[in-house]
């Protein structure tokens, strides 16, 4: 008898799913919108405040929102197609498929990082006026939102297997964000995913009004912890190792709480 050497199918599956996610029309449209807004901004169209905003957390809206929906659709594709029976008899388990979907969320994240870097270079070359240049943590906020959107999309597909459930999740997210952000114009705290770091002041936002006093480094940790929490939530659904993922989820909750407090002024 020959000894079989079997490799896990998760990496290959993650690559395939990441490719599907990146080719999804919603994701393409989201990145296209962001790039379009960036190109406009590179000509110093809106002034320093919106320019800073775009570079730090603009990605939370797009491609963040479309990535959430696309990730949900890609992760739920076989269920919606009625293909779970066929896939259920294959060697790769449902847990492995979920893990691959979670890893695939790194695809849009990496693209977001690349876009962000290109935008930084563009800002520097064009000399876009900013009150100050964002820190690395602040630059990471946009891509982290994109990562979280992808992971939450997978969690949503696993836990809420009904048509339209993702829309409700998005409504809840927006509602949460509006409630915790407080007044954007004067600078609230940073509990939202889309949190304004710069104080916008009155229209047309041309004058520099300073920054939100919260700690943006902790805010990045806060977002990262939320991302990992969404991933743990997705894995918890069908993994036979429930205890492990419950534990991991509990750790991320603690991390979210610590980072959430840490970001307060």
């Amino acid at each position: 008898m020959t000894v079989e050497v079997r490799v896990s199918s998760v990496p290959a599956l993650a690559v395939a799913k990441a490719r599907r996610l990146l080719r999804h029309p919603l994701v393409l449209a989201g990145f296209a919108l962001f790039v379009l807004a960036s190109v406009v901004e590179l000509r110093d169209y809106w002034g320093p405040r919106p320019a800073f905003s775009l570079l730090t957390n603009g990605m939370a809206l797009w491609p963040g929102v479309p990535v959430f929906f696309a990730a949900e659709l890609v992760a739920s594709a076989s269920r919606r197609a009625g293909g779970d029976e066929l896939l259920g008899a294959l060697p790769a388990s449902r847990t492995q498929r979920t893990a691959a979907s979670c890893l695939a969320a790194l695809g849009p994240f990496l693209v977001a990082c690349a876009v962000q870097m290109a935008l930084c270079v563009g800002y520097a070359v064009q000399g876009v006026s900013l009150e100050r240049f964002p820190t690395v943590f602040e630059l990471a906020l946009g891509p982290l939102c994109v990562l979280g959107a992808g992971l939450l999309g997978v969690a949503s597909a696993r836990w809420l297997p009904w048509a339209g459930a993702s829309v409700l999740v998005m409504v809840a997210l927006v509602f949460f964000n509006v409630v915790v952000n407080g007044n954007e114009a004067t600078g609230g705290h940073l509990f939202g995913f889309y949190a304004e770091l710069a104080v916008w002041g009155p229209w047309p936002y041309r004058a520099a009004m300073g920054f939100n006093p919260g700690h943006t480094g902790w805010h990045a940790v806060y977002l990262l912890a939320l991302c990992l929490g969404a991933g743990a939530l997705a894995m918890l659904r069908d993994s036979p190792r429930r205890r492990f993922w419950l534990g991991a989820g509990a750790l991320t909750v603690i991390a979210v709480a610590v980072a959430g407090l840490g970001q307060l002024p």
Partner: protein
Amino acid sequence: MNTVVVTNVVKSYGRHRALDGLSFTAGPGVTGLLGPNGAGKTTLIRMLATVLAADSGTLRLLGRDPSAERLQIRRRLGYLPQEPGFHRAFTVFEFVDYVAILKEIVDRRARHDEVRRVIAEVGLAEVSGKRIRALSGGMRRRVGIAQALLGEPELVLLDEPTAGLDPEQRLRFRELISRIGENRTVVLSTHQTEDVAALCGRVVVFDGGRCMFEGTPEELRRVAEGQVWLSAERSGVLSWRTGEGLFRNIGQAPDAARLAEPTIEDGYLLLLGDAAVGVRS
């Protein structure tokens, strides 16, 4: 050696017994599960595919116990469900490739070669770049068979692979399936006696979750030997007027009747009795 050994398997949905102490075996070649709708064919095939567990009784697949060694069995299994849901936006190649990844063929080049091989084997090479939603029902069924052939499985399960096909497609399917069955175990379900006659080396007839016959198609035919009569009048439980104007009666001999050569269908109908004409006890 028997690839599939099913002993005394019981499976209930609520109070309804879908499989009621079923036993049978299958080895290399094509074995047909023949029975009317609701007989329990899909329930049984899902068990053989390791997606459904039996309430009681034992199953051995490829010499292993599916409750303990499911993964090892799945690696040597090909399965076409009765209603395979396809990702309609995928191309044929993308879909089969996706299944190939889930079948742990992770090396990209080897996988693509394998995907092309199975697509060619079912005669879909020309449309491998087409989206599945643009294919006809028969072509989709062939996509389903292609994915079941990935990785040269030793046991191939096909749930009603010929249902809803036109006669020409049916013929092509028979050719394909008999080729597949040349060097492995194929278990297929059908409610068509013609499929069994044309394809299967062995046939298991069952109804109401119970095995009623196990043997070769020729043996099934001989079940009705001496019990099929042609006469001028209708008689017996089952009789119908043939093209020549005579009645074909299965069962007791009517008056002035002539004994006729039975077919597999006659044997099947005789076994099922009332169930065959839709009357259930």
